[in-house]
């Protein structure tokens, strides 16, 4: 999940402007530049689909929590409707904490159907947030 795209962009700037000792040149510097380039490629993926992934994940977790709420007495997470990266991540953190709690209760109760549903959600969450390495 972390770091967020704004953090990563700040990191690119910090890495590019940080002073390095003389001995950190040559192959090491080339490797460092290559890593920054790789990060930039993946940041483009995150810029393209990161917000959509967050909105989807928050909705999916919220739906599952709502479905389980009557049986498990979980308080719903509030949604302020703010679509900034920071607000979506904050809501996501709240929802994930509730999801962890729900899953613990589901396991303790032996609720196999809901357990399978949560595991399927985990797969979908991980897939939605995937980052793809460049082909070469």
């Amino acid at each position: 999940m972390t770091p967020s795209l704004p953090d990563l962009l700040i990191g690119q700037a910090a890495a590019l402007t940080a002073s390095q000792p003389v001995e950190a040149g040559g192959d090491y510097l080339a490797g460092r530049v290559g890593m920054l380039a790789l990060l930039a490629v993946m940041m483009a993926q995150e810029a393209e689909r990161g917000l959509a992934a967050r909105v989807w994940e928050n909705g999916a977790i919220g739906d599952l929590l709502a479905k389980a709420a009557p049986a498990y007495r979980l308080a719903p997470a509030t949604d302020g409707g703010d679509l900034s990266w920071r607000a979506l991540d904050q809501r996501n953190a709240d929802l994930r904490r509730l999801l962890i709690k729900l899953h613990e209760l589901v396991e303790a109760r032996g609720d196999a159907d809901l357990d399978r549903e949560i595991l399927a959600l985990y797969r979908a969450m991980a897939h939605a947030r995937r980052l793809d390495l460049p082909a070469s």
Partner: protein
Amino acid sequence: MTPLADALAAYLTRTAGAPVAVEALARISGGASRETYRYDAVIGGRRDGYILRRDPPGSLIDTDRRLEFLAISSFVGKGVAAPQVVALEEDGAELDRPFFIMRRVDGGAAASPFSADPYGEHREAIGEQFFSILGKIAAEPLAGLPFVEVAPAPEHSACWRRELDYWAGVIDADEQHPQPIVRAAIRRLRRDPPPTAARISVVHGDYRSGNFLHDGRGSIIAVLDWEMAHLGDPLEDLAWAMDPLWSPIPDGRVSGMIGVAEALAIWSRASGLAIDPKAMAWWSLFAAVKGQAIWTSSAKAWKDGGFIEPILAFSGWYTARRHDEILAERLSALEVA
């Protein structure tokens, strides 16, 4: 001369009792938890190549360099391509931070574990050696090893709990955003422990593609990064080496080397151990938990360090997300099984 080269030359001159010149000092990529440098030491007209491993100001993984030093020492000359270690300074001496020095192994390169075809036409030969060396490490008798003098040995039945407690604790300490997938995996591992370890062995701790040098002609010439070495169940190393993270191309080959069945057979022959599928399944899920713990620490170290080190951003981001995918797939597969 740079300040580091000056300090290193002063240290070497003091310990050698003769003037030593440090030349061609250059930082190299050597993992995120140690600063790694190559240099030539010139003494009395003789030039030799060395590697300096120094603790960074803030270390990614809380490891003990004495353990790393003694782990490597324990395997020099044992046919597992351990480099020759020559000096350890835990108080940092002239270099301010703890460090150790090894003989440099020239003529080799470490492949990126994330490249599409890291070993090319030599994949079979490299794979044979890779799993054979790991099996030899598992087979090495503990009696008399320098490493055993300082590494605590768990009970056969307690290996899994010690490792799981440690890495779950790392996640507890360093997590910046809730991670339901790895939390579910930790609970699953606790609910269904593995069979008792068949043997207590030296566990390298980070034995994987990218952590060895090969000569480009099909030979492994140095096994690197022993900093997480400990005593435990040797299946821990095998599962880590075979984690799907190190196989970015899903072509059925482990780390771009050889097939799964072949890898297991080679390791089993070299170690003299049969592989219990239930134990292997447990350690395979654990490997992804351990990875997620390391990447969780990477993300924290990257943030705490002012977002400067790109390798920490990569491991705290790409590898963390990849391990979430691996964990989610494994959890579902275990549920079906």
